[in-house]
């Protein structure tokens, strides 16, 4: 054990003496700190803004004057997706999905105002986040300082004496590993601080620890790659070349290839296409605005029998309201079916792309990071589903008011004159059918479960690389 520690100590002593290593470390620490702070500030500002807008939207809805209830279902409501605390590390899909949805009767609108659409366009990486720096660029630093950990012993002719002193390959590997792991843990400090800040802001400990663990595991994978290559080749130039190639492939090429493959393996139609294909089915349901439509004749007959009356006017309920209510339920059923199909396709695409984590640890860590931070596709879908629940509830709540409180005769005569129109305005007290909305990501254990596959991939990477590295270290000859 003491041999292991002294090898590790020697390595770090050399790094501290090397101006290049110190310089790159310093630059990265500044970069990490700056990016972490910038991402944190931006996401907390977004959180504050969207919470305020949500409160304002609810207040505005509730303060509407007396109206015909159907006017209110078209007046509609807005819901905002507030970012979870861990978005300070990984904003994920936040800036690509749009943050608010307009909810109204008979329609499922898409989320609007994605930041990416109005942002400054420079190509390349869309904005620098703490997550991106850890995923793509910290490995470069590890390569820069670690590519020669074994090769150095050869170059300086210290390998032979070391081995002669009875240091085994295992101990040599362990020593170098401890040294690399030490640097890695030091580099994780900014991440730890932001994670702690997220806990203060209400994030579950489990999720915060999960993110820390994920990134630690990920960077250890890179340590494993670096140690393996450094133990196997004899020249620094070759070691650097191989590591650069691995980085180029896993950080830049494979993630985008994963996207391209997923797009062609699982084609998903866009929203307009889905909407257009849905129209025919929606027409079969019938237009809820038109109580005389043939689709509602059966409903009308059933109601007349049920209440044992001759005319619609004699029903104890407002027939127009009943039609609105029934049509809304049917239309929603159709819309949800199409929406679920679409979301299912997107999830399958994402899962397909995620499987490229077996080829590149970068793909695995980015999927895991989004899942744990609550900024992944699944969380966006959760938002869409919750928004739909809010929409359906308030629309049907108002339709109920239409059915029960609004007299049918007044209703059909509402366009005759202003006085008749006034009688169809229901009290604003009814508007409190609207539920408060505050978007929360899934519970920490569910997010951890979603990150299970990426965590498994990274563990497999780490195991294989460590085994390979130890094998290579054991075979080292001076």
């Amino acid at each position, binding site marked *: 054990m003491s041999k292991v520690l002294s090898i590790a100590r020697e390595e770090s002593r050399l790094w501290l003496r090397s101006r290049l290593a110190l310089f790159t470390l310093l630059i990265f620490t500044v970069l990490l700190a700056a990016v972490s702070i910038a991402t944190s500030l931006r996401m907390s500002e977004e959180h504050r803004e969207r919470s305020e807008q949500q409160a304002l939207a609810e207040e505005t809805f509730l303060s509407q004057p007396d109206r015909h209830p159907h006017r209110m279902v078209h007046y509609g409501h807005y819901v905002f997706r507030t970012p979870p605390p861990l978005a300070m590390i990984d904003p994920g899909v936040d800036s690509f999905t749009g943050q608010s949805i307009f909810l109204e009767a008979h329609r499922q609108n898409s989320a609007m105002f994605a930041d990416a659409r109005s942002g400054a366009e420079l190509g390349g990486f869309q904005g620098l986040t703490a997550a991106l720096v850890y995923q793509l660029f910290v490995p470069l630093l590890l390569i820069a300082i670690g590519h020669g950990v074994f090769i150095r012993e050869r170059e300086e002719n210290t390998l032979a004496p070391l081995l002669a002193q009875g240091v085994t390959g295992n101990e040599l590997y362990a020593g170098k590993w401890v040294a690399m792991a030490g640097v890695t843990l030091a580099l994780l400090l900014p991440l730890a601080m932001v994670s702690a800040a997220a806990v203060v802001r209400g994030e579950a400990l489990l999720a915060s620890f999960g993110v820390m663990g994920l990134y630690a595991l990920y960077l250890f994978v890179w340590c494993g790659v670096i140690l393996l290559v450094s133990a196997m080749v004899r020249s620094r130039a070759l070691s650097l070349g191989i590591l650069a190639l691995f980085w180029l492939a896993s950080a830049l090429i494979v*993630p985008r290839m994963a996207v391209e493959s997923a797009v062609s393996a699982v084609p998903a139609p866009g929203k307009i296409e889905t909407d257009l294909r849905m129209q025919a089915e929606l027409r079969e349901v019938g237009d809820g605005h038109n109580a005389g439509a043939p689709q509602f004749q059966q409903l009308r007959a059933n109601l007349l029998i049920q209440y044992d009356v001759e005319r619609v006017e004699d029903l104890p309920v407002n027939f127009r309201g009943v039609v609105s209510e029934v049509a809304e339920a049917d239309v929603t059923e159709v819309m949800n079916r199409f929406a679920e199909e679409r979301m299912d396709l997107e999830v399958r695409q994402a899962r397909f792309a995620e499987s490229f984590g077996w080829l590149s640890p970068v793909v695995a860590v980015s999927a895991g990071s989004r899942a744990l931070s609550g900024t992944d596709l699944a969380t966006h879908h959760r938002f869409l589903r919750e928004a739909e629940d809010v929409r359906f509830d308030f629309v049907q709540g108002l339709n109920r008011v239409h059915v029960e409180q609004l007299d049918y005769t007044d209703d059909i005569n509402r366009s005759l004159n202003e006085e008749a129109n006034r009688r169809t305005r229901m009290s604003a007290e009814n508007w409190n059918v609207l539920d408060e909305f505050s978007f929360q990501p899934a519970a920490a254990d569910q997010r951890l479960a979603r990150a299970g596959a990426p965590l498994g991939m990274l563990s497999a990477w780490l195991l294989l690389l460590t085994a390979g590295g130890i094998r290579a270290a054991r075979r080292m000859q001076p």
Partner: protein
Amino acid sequence: MSGLIREIRFLASDRAALLWLGIALLVACVSVILGLREIAAQRAVLNDLIEIDYAEREVLDTLYQDWGDVAYYTFHLTWDSPSDFAFAALGQRDTSPWKHQIRALALEGQIYETDAENPDFALIGRFDFAFAANLLAPLLLILLLHDLRSAERTAGRYELLSATAASRGSPWFARAALRTGALALCLIGPLWAGGLPGGAGASTLILASLVVILHIAFWWSVCVLVDRYGWTSPVNLTALVGAWLALAVIVPAAIKISVEAAVPLPDGGEILLTQREAVNDAWDLPKAATMEPFIERHPEWADYTEVGQPFEWKWYYAFQQVGDQTVEPLSQAYHDGRIGRDRLVGSLAWLSPPALAERAMQALADTNVAATLAYEQRVRAFHKALREYYYPRLFRGEPVSTASLEQRPQFQGNES
């Protein structure tokens, strides 16, 4: 000449250099193929949609007897066809809509909807030629050039080679020039091979090649600069990758943050809320409150403003228009802000050659912010034409007829 042949032989025997060049060629080929495939897929989707949209309207045209209903229920597809060079730089087509459905209601409530692809993918980005040439190629050039001199130095041949060369530095220059040229060829070759059959104009391809060459030349000069210090290969490589990180990643990110702070945009949510309030308040206001601002814009309907019933379609569409008028200042500010941001980025991009090259390619491919905004303007113009078609029919209370429906404006795509 014999020098060049010698250098080519030398390059042919350098396995590492061949590997990097091979990767460059492979990456460029793959990016061009994927780009062409994506553009073909977008065209296919558009063709499908245009057909469905047309069929859908044919069905709708038989359903309604009232112009108000016709205008309310009929959606129109609008689209932005990809240019023939779009395969090389997908640019904004990845995040901004290139297809959009609108109807004759208030436009501000509709125009910001996005028919987006899987957001996971927009986040990671697509594998297009611009990515290969602007982000990957500099790294490959760095790998090709970082140890030209230092490797010879390590091998102990440097002094000998320098002393025997005809002029100081010439073997290095020829060697570096050959590698740089080979890399540029590995990129430009596939671009032309995919672009010419794909229909991209030769002039566009020449300009794009020029962008690639200038950008690669810039990175060569960076390599030369670092090489002067006479460091060892690993230090050279670290410094050069550091330069790449700074110029390709950090500077663009800093530009993005500062531009977005310097040119604030009105909040999108505010545009929607203001528009909705204006439209909905109209229901509770006297009809004149809607008709007066409407007539200011459309004096030709001044004689038809009498609204006798609590609900009339012409009044309904008038307040839709007034809703748009109310948010016009905000909407204009949003539009101007996006142009302002783009202009400022355009000037600041000179600080980051990769960003500059990316923007140049997006401009050639018509996939830049300006192209997105131009599409938005086309949608606005079409919406205006729709309104102008419906207003006479609504205000004069004309009956719905097939002949009249046939005069309805159709969206004209930008296909060349």
